[in-house]
C-alpha cells in the first residue's frame, strides 16, 4: 500500500512541484493550505508523514506542531519541516517540538526532500 503524505503548505508553486514529485515517487499525497486544515486532515487521514511549512495563514507550522504534541494520536506522526526563513531561533523551536528533520527551501532541491522522506518512512 502506498504511503500517505500530508503536505501542509500555502505557496501554490511549491505545492505543484512537490505534489508532482511525490506522486511520481509513488506516494499518496493530500493537501492542506494551513495548519488548521492540516490538523483536521491528520485526524481523518492518519498520514504516514507530514511535510509542513512554518509561515502560513490561520495557524502556522509551530502552532500546529504544538497542537499535535498535545494529541496522543497525532504526536506519533513524523514531521519534516520545510521553511523559508531558517532563523536560528525558529530552527531551535522546531527541534524542541520534535520535528524529525527540517530544511530551508532555498538550500535544497525537491530531489533532496524526497531523499529525506525516504530516510524517514521508506519508499
Amino acid at each position, binding site marked *: 500500500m502506498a504511503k500517505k503524505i500530508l503536505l501542509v503548505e500555502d505557496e501554490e508553486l511549491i505545492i505543484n512541484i512537490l505534489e508532482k514529485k511525490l506522486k511520481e515517487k509513488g506516494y499518496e499525497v493530500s493537501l492542506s493550505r494551513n495548519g488548521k486544515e492540516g490538523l483536521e486532515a491528520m485526524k481523518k487521514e492518519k498520514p504516514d508523514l507530514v511535510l509542513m511549512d512554518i509561515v502560513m495563514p490561520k495557524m502556522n507550522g509551530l502552532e500546529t506542531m504544538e497542537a499535535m504534541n498535545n494529541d496522543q494520536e497525532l504526536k506519533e506522526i513524523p514531521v519534516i519541516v520545510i521553511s523559508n526563513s531558517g*532563523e536560528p531561533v525558529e530552527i531551535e523551536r522546531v527541534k524542541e517540538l520534535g520535528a524529525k528533520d527540517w530544511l530551508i527551501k532555498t538550500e535544497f532541491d525537491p530531489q533532496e526532500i524526497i531523499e529525506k522522506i525516504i530516510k524517514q518512512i521508506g519508499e
Partner: protein
Amino acid sequence: MEDSKEKNSWQEAGASEGYLYDFWKFLPLPLCYVNSLHFILDINEKLEQVFGYTQVEMAGEDIEKFFQENSSMEELKKEIVQKGSVKKEAIFLTKDKKEILVSLSAIARRDRQNYFNGYFLVIDRIHKNEEAYSPLELKEQIKEKTKELETKLTELRNSRLALLNMLEDAEESKKQVEEEKERTLSIVANFVDGLINFDMENKMVLINSEAEKIFSVKNQEVTGKSIAELAKIPNIKSLIEILSGPSKHVKIDEIFKKELKISEKLILEVSTIPIVKEGKQTGTLVILHDVTRGKLIEKMKTEFVSISAHQLRTPLSAIKWTIKMLIDGDLGEVNKGQEEFLEKIYVSNERMIALINDLLDVTRIEEGRYIYDLTQVSFIDLVQKMIDLYKNEFEKKEIKFGFKKPRAVPKLTVDVEKINLVLQNLFDNALKYTKKDGEVSVAIEHDKKKNEMVFSIKDTGIGIAKDQQDRIYTRFFRSGNALRMETEGSGLGLYIAKNIIEAHHGKVWFESEEGKGSTFNFSLPAK
C-alpha cells in the same frame, strides 16, 4: 631758762635736719645742691639712680663737667646769680657716656644778708626717658618685645584678613554647594529615567517623580522605608523582588542590569550602581530606564527580517525548484540550447538566494554587538551543556572528544544566550573542519593572576594557512581550504564570536597550522 631754750632750739634744729634729710632722699626728681662757686655739694638718690654716678663721684666737681660743652652752662652760672632762677634745656652726660637731653630748673639760695650762696638744680624732665630709665638689657628686651608685638600684630592683621577671606570663601562655597545641590536635585527630579537611592542600610532615601509615576507611589509612602517594608507595598513589590533577588534577602545585589515588565506597555531596564564617596560606598542608585520602545523596535526588526526573508525566499525557492525540474527533464524533454539557458537562470537565482542569506546574517551580527541580559552563571555548566549537544555529532563523525576542566572556579557574569552563540560557533567549526578519526579537546582554565577564565578548543582539523591567519576574524572571511571543503558557511561565526567576547571585556586568539589543526581561545573576566 636760756639754757633750756637753747636746748629746745637745738632739738628743733636736729628734728628739722632729719626731716630735710628724709625729704631730700625721698624726692622723686634728680636733684643736686651746688655752691656759689658752682661746685656740687650734694646729690640725691634719684640722681644717682638715673645717671649712674655716686654721691662721692659728683660731690666737689664743677657742675659744668656733667653737661655737654654746648649746653652753655656758663650762661646758667651767670643767670642764676643775677636772676635767682633759671629754666633751660641741657644735655647731661651720664656715667656710661650717654648724652641725655633734659629740662632743668635751678633756684638760688641766699643767706640772711641776701648774699648768693648757692643753688638747687633739678632735672625736672628727661626727654628720652625710656632710654635713660632702662638698663641696656631691658631696652633690648623691650626692643625685641616691640618687634615681637609688631610681628604679632601683623600676623593678627593677616589672620584677621585671612579669616575674613575664609568667611567669604565659605560663604561662596556654601552658595556653590547649595547651587550644586539644587542643580543635582532638579536634575534628579526632572530626569527622564526613574531614579531611586538607597542608603547603606538599604533604606530608600530618595525617589524622583518619574519613579513615582512608574510605580504609582507617593514619595511619602516609600522614603525612609527599608527594603523589607517596601516589599509589602504592592505597587513597588515587583521592583524590590528583582533588587533583592529570589532569595529575598534584604540586601541589594551588586551592580546588575535586569528587565522588569510592569505591563504590556511598560518594560523597564533596571540597573543598580554603587554610589562611592572618597572610596567608600555610601549607597546604591537604582536607575529605571524605559526600554519599551527599544524592545518594540527590536521585536519589529526581528519580525521584519524574518518576514522579508520569507517573502523574498518563497518565490526564489519556487523558481529554483521549477528550474531544477525543467533541467532534470521532469516536465518534458528540453534541448541542449534551452538547458544551457536554464542552467544560467539557476545560477543567477542561486546568487540571489546567497545575497538574501547575507542580508539575514548581517542582522545576526548586530545581535553579537549588544549584551542585554547579564546573569551570573557557572561557566563549566555552560560548556558542559554545549558538549552534551555536540557529543552525538562528534561520535557520528568518529572524532575523539576530550574535556579538561578545573575543580572549582569563580562564576562569570555574562549574557548566556550570547556566550552560547560563541561556543556554538567554535564547536561548529571544530566539528565541520575536523576529519573522521580526528580529535577535538576542550579545556577551561582559571587564570588566577588575571582573575579570568580561559576557554580553548583544539582540533586536528584542516588548519589555517599562515598568509590567511590575520583575516580570520574579519567579516565574511572564509579560508581557501575551508571553501574547498564545504561551500556552506557564512564566514561570520568567528566575527560574531569576537564581537560578543569583546563586548564582555574578554579577548579572543588562536594558534593554527595548515593541515595539522587549530586551537581557538577566548578569555572572560571572572566576576
